[in-house]
């Protein structure tokens, strides 16, 4: 597997993970470039970030469902001013909330990268791009799915 940073402008300092037993399977999967989400074994509700109980039926057990990696932009901002000094080299960047295909009702906070920020729109189709921070941590980012402006 080719490991590389696809969003090197976003500091690795932000991606120091502190998983717990419930979130760790998500991050283990991203390291293998697989996007997964936990689905309640009883009622089928997805929950993100992963939590120890289903918010709908309070069941604990989950199936980790592998997703297509496609999604749509639910909302976004274009961050143009660095709010902390170590983000000075990152601006402008697009923070986006992504609805994930195959996991209705849950969203992932991420970025849309490799795009002119002026072209990002709500409803825009995107697909995952894997940002390998180091040997242990991989963060899912998103790029336009149709290749426009990519």
């Amino acid at each position, binding site marked *: 597997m080719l490991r590389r940073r696809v969003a090197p402008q*976003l500091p690795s300092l*932000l991606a120091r993970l502190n998983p717990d037993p419930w979130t760790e399977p998500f991050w283990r999967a991203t390291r293998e470039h697989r996007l997964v989400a936990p689905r309640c074994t009883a009622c089928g509700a997805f929950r993100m*970030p992963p939590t120890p109980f289903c918010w709908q039926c309070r069941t604990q057990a989950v199936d980790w469902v592998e997703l297509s990696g496609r999604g749509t932009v639910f909302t976004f*901002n274009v961050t*143009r001013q660095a709010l*902390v000094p170590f983000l000075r080299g*990152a601006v402008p*960047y697009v*923070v986006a909330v992504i609805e994930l295909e195959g996991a209705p009702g849950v969203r*992932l906070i991420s970025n849309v990268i490799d795009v002119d920020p002026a072209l990002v729109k709500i409803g825009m189709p995107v697909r995952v791009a894997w940002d390998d921070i180091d040997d242990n941590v991989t963060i899912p980012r998103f790029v336009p799915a149709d290749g426009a402006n990519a």
Partner: protein
Amino acid sequence: MSIKNSAAVVGVGSTPYYRRGESWPQTTMELACKAILAAVEDAGLRVDDIDGFALYSMPLDVSLLAQTLGIPEVRFSSTLTGGGGGAAGSVGLAAAAIHGGMAECVVSFLTLQQAKRRFGAAFALKQSDSDKGGGAYAPPHMPEMDFAAPSGLVGPGQMFGLLAQRHMHLYGTKREHFAEVAISTRANAIRRPSSLMREPLTLDEYMTARMIADPLCLYDFCLETDGAVAVITTSAERAKDLRQRPVHVLGSAHGGAGRWGQAIMWMNMPEEYFASSGHRPVAKRLYEMAGVGPSDIDVALLYDHFTPMVLMQLEDYGFCEIGESGRFVAEGNIRWPNGSLPVNTHGGNLSEAYIIGMTHIREAVEQLRGTAINQVQGAELALVTGGPASIPVSGLILRR
């Protein structure tokens, strides 16, 4: 049984307001004590009368405060969970303590000094290489934060920008509508000596200002300031004999939907109320307790950390339909003195000072005493809200 009419705000006190960091070398404790002593004096009480603290956003440790001021006996000490969402609700908490017989003279206050930490990056895990901690609300590295921080989402302005963008998409809300909140609030601030922003703001200046977290620009963000404000709540009975005309607690509520939850740090709220302030259930309960509705409110002090959140609160408190707040403000409704609902007559967090919502409570009291600088003539009912954020959010209705 409720707290309705059981308690009254009888004293308000404040330090001057300072630009970020400029209150130094006063300490936050010193600022807090100055505001509390001013509120005691305003009420015609003595420090020895204080027996309770009803707080929010954990301004400082009550044990240290009580020993510093020599409070004879603390009988109630409680803080709403969460942050600025609880501002208005702290007075409701005070009323609950009084109504429940646990204390009689309860202080709510906030003291703030942003010399080292900036709330503009409140959720940053680490603000500089020498900073061992993080933003003021930075949690001790919770697993949930792994799902937000890597994207570079570190400041509340970015987070609320995500809600604002969705509101624009759903309802056609425009930057001009955000501008009306900023400009009308500035117009109110200009007349107040306590305000830090006293130059008029034009639409052209707004539209050409630098974008920080697009769609939000510089003037959509509140100030970062220092200072302290305190209010004293006591029983309606005792309030009759004090120095000021009592301002009665008609109702207060805090909380919100569980699935609003962490809201801006989570972004998985149900779509039905994603582009909202999170206040809808609180507003409903507040009006029910107070026995009044939106048309009865004479002046609204709506927590304005970011302009779009004022719009969403106008909707959630029923001053207009959901999605109609842009049109509502464009028609001049929130302007003082001639709008149908003057909003943030003190200049708000946006233009007077940001003391995490306490200035809104202070202004409500002044409006209902009839001593406000931008007085709404004949004001009888004032609505005060805490900051749209994670739950609990809160509301308060005061009456003359």
